[in-house]
């Protein structure tokens, strides 16, 4: 995409927690940004532009927080953009930043995404509604659980698939010091015995609410060639959106997701994602979204996603590990979650994923989605230049 190559040369993120009571909003964001700069061995003055993203401002009660955060992110005197594309925002933010490099406009861009949602309450912020609109009384889970039921019916999947994903992702998280949830005793029985929240979703099949931030330094080729640690090269990037409700909409396997994936694969020269990619960080906030997205992202035929999960293909030891970091099921600062996917997958192909490094990962997919399964942003990154 674009005439200029773009690479990730620095990644930083906070240790995601339910409440970060030790920092201000600026402090939280700064921590991730400093981490990325240190990884890239850059100074604030080296950064040409800042692209920040987060979910609705009501979470923190600060409107257009890029204004308040300009100083904290070294943006004074520089261009600053604030992206907001609902849950996919962390991903879109990274893509807007990459776009600046690929267009040859800036050489070094700092991109950050965050949420300090403990300042209010995620359920409240997501369900604020103006008068005349039907309230989402059951929250996000109440919106997605019916879609999951529809998937189960369409595919004939057995009941235990969702729980397998929950166990897998939380087990992976045990290797990730930044993950919010560390549940060493997690197993199928523990998940099954957890309260059923929105049938068929149980408590332990649901993402947590986290405070956290994630940042990356994206640069052009010349700078990346001189970077202190291996870069992750952007091989393809794409965004797609479709309306929330329309006649004939497939909410379970949305076309916007399929087309976004097809676009990013075409750019990256991926024809068979399961075979051509080494791993993926995919936005799975509720367990059953893994089999649904396996189909949506072309890792298998429609209706077969649950079989891949059941066979262990997406496990850390499997042939196509999904969410080796623990995923959204293990950490969910809403505005940052998409960027965490993009950053963690970059770390995989850089060989810097530490305790949850997928051996030999050289090409991988980062994915984020938002709204009523309607906004998608994705990238494919690789160890080698595209």
């Amino acid at each position, binding site marked *: *995409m*674009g*005439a200029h190559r773009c690479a990730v040369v620095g990644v930083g993120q906070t240790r995601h927690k339910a409440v970060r009571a030790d920092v*201000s*909003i600026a402090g939280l964001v700064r921590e991730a940004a400093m981490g990325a700069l240190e990884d890239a061995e850059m100074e604030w003055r080296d950064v040409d532009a800042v692209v920040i993203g987060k*979910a*609705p*401002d*009501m979470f923190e009660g*600060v*409107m*257009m927080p*890029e*204004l*308040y*955060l*300009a*100083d904290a992110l070294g*943006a*004074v*005197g*520089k*261009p*600053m*953009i*604030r*992206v*907001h*594309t*609902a849950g996919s925002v962390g991903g*879109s933010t990274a*893509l*807007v930043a990459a*776009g*600046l490099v*690929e*267009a*040859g*406009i800036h050489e070094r861009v700092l991109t950050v995404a965050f949420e300090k949602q403990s300042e209010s309450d995620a359920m409240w*912020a*997501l369900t*604020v*509604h*103006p008068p005349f*609109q039907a309230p989402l009384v059951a929250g996000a889970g109440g919106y997605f659980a019916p879609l999951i039921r529809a998937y189960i019916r369409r595919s004939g999947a057995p009941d235990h698939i969702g729980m397998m994903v929950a166990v897998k992702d939380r087990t992976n998280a045990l290797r990730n010091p930044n993950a919010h949830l560390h549940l060493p005793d997690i197993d199928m029985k523990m998940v099954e015995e957890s309260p059923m929240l929105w049938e068929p979703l149980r408590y332990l099949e649901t993402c947590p609410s986290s405070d956290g931030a994630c940042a990356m330094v994206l640069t052009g080729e010349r700078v990346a060639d001189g970077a202190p640690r291996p870069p992750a090269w952007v091989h393809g990037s*794409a*965004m*797609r*959106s*479709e*309306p*929330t409700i*329309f006649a004939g909409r497939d909410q379970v396997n*949305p*076309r*916007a997701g399929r*087309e*976004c994936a097809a676009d990013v694969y075409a750019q990256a020269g991926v024809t068979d994602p399961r075979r051509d990619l080494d791993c993926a960080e995919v936005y799975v906030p509720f367990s059953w979204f893994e089999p649904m997205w396996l189909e949506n992202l072309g890792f298998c035929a429609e209706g077969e996603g649950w079989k891949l999960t059941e066979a262990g293909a997406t496990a850390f030891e499997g042939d196509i590990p999904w969410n080796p970091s623990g995923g959204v099921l293990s950490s969910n600062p809403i505005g940052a979650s998409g960027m965490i996917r993009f950053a963690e997958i970059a770390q995989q192909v850089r060989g810097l994923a530490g305790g949850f490094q997928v051996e030999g990962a050289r090409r991988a997919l980062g994915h984020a989605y938002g*709204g009523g399964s*309607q906004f998608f942003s994705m990238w494919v990154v690789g160890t080698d230049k595209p």
Partner: protein
Amino acid sequence: MRDVAVVAFAQSNAATDAHRNEVEILMPVVTEAIDRSGIGRHDLGFVCSGSCDYLIGAPFSFVQALDAIGAWPPVRESHVEQDGAWALYEAWVRLQHGDVDSALVYGFGKTSMGDLSEVLTLQLDPYFVAPLWPDAVSLAALQARAYLEATGKGERDLAEVVARSRAAAMGNPHAVVHEARSADEMLREPTVVSPLRPSDCPPVTDGAAAVVLAAGDRARELCERPAWIRGIDHRIEAHALGCRDITRSESTRLAGERAGVGDAPVDVAELHAQFSHEELILRDALGLGERVDVNPSGGALAANPMMATGLIRIGEAASRVSDGGARRAVAHASSGPCLQHNLVCVLEGE
């Protein structure tokens, strides 16, 4: 850089549009811009919008706006929680990639539903400033007085900006202020937060705007006289009022320099000055002399649909180029308290 031009622009403003919600206001504006562009809706390569959840009082308010554009089959689409001018910037960047040739940009906001000046308080430092609830007019007054005292200008100079803007607005069917008044008349108004009077402040407005951008030969095919974006840049300043010189707009100066404002004479400038004194500060920052026709549309003092006002400046400046009234135009957009964040765009005919 790939040549990108504004090939169509549409807007709709009302002092209060009580009957229509944001989507109902936006849809005809988007339709009009697309129709004027000559590009089929499905051929648009990218869509980007600017809006703000707090104006509607609900999160994800931009999502319903997607209904206005017919996003099917799925579209390449993005959104900034900033004025549509920044959405235009993102679209301009996107067009540089070369894989798509056109983009739709829109911005919208209804400010009649709440107290905009108070809502904007939520942009402020959450620890030291916001809890005191200094509204936007109050902050503007601080900057206005500082500017007047630093330059020796007076309240009459502010009133003359307003008088000129209102007179210009009489010729703008999209203005929501329709009453020309003299500086003397306005100086007889009591101040609201001194030195500012109600007429120094922007009008409550519900509205939307849309711009279609096209690149290279595509723009030439579509439009007899595309308004080419010759330079576009934006810069942000320190947040705290005490940490920057509020009598000047350094970020506007810098963005203007990067956009190449000073490279050639400017005929028209559309400046996103929500308050009268801001126009004077911005003129200084951009080095705009007496011969420049500033805000022939009447500017933000004529209509202020928050989140679209900056985009409208670009549309209006582009229209002056496209209709032959200007060879070279400057458009400016602003965000944040007391001109903290500024975007400058230079537009030229071929």
